[in-house]
């Protein structure tokens, strides 16, 4: 009986030691200040491409659209949360794309832009 109790205790301890949880974040890209205040200085029809580059730095991608250019800024954030048990494991990964795009005409003047930072940090 005493041996059984000890074995039971060892089993419970063993199960407890094998259980765990995990959390991680994975960030890639260009982190700039994405709040709206950072973009209020940009005006369609007057802001130039150089103004945007000076304010935000080099983009993730520069694209020739045929009637001008576009600057694309991307900051990719992944957050993972996991529950690791002996016979049940679960992992949730949530990826947010903080991004902004700026369209310029052939004179490198800002035509349209949009930004979005959809998720929590």
């Amino acid at each position, binding site marked *: 009986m005493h041996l059984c109790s000890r074995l039971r205790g060892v089993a419970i301890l063993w199960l407890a030691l094998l259980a765990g949880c995990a959390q991680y974040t994975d960030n890639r890209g260009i982190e700039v200040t994405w709040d709206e205040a950072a973009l209020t200085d940009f005006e369609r029809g007057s802001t130039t491409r150089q103004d945007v580059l000076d304010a935000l730095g080099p983009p993730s991608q520069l694209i020739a*659209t045929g009637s001008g250019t576009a600057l694309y800024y991307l900051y990719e954030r992944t957050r993972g949360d996991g529950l690791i048990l002996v016979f049940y494991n679960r992992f949730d990964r949530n990826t947010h794309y903080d991004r902004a795009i700026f369209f310029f005409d052939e004179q490198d003047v800002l035509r349209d832009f949009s*930004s979005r930072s959809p998720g929590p940090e």
Partner: protein
Amino acid sequence: MIGRDRGWLLAAILVLQACSINRYQLGEPLAAWESDQARGTSLDAALAQLGPPLHISAQAQGYLLAWEYWEINEEKLGLSLRALGADFLSVDFGDAETRGEFLVLSFDREHRVVDSRFQRWRADAGSGQGVQALVSVISVVDVDDLTHRLLQHRWGAFNLAPLAVGLNRQQDLSTGENGLQRRGTPTRAGQHSTQMGRGDQ
């Protein structure tokens, strides 16, 4: 005594099997978009409604913008002695499902929508069963090709790519000038087949 044996047997069965669930959420659901009314919409109005796109590519008469959202659910069930330190046999079952939304808008040089297409889907992404000895070397279901990072991070990287990829530069998607494609598009056929398996991921 028999009851105690049954208890240990039940506990052993519970301990020897394992369930693993992986869920991925990539991006955010798209705002409502009526394809029938899209023609003629200005770039400004499209960006105001949908936010910045996830993909952009130039084309002969303008450019393409695309938005996408993915949910991936991967479930695996295994029966193994690994928990007891004896991994000589394992039985695995796996199943994967995807849900998503994809919207592509084609703009002309005057920044007006000339064509659009929206799709929402729910699809089986694969399943499998296997009995493996000693080591589980093969995953019966795999969604890695659906969870890669966006191509914008690789802009310019084709200059350092292997020869087979560099020679196919006219099909490189990271430049933003050679079209776009959804996640999960096979790379061993079509425009990347000459890259000998080193397709865009």
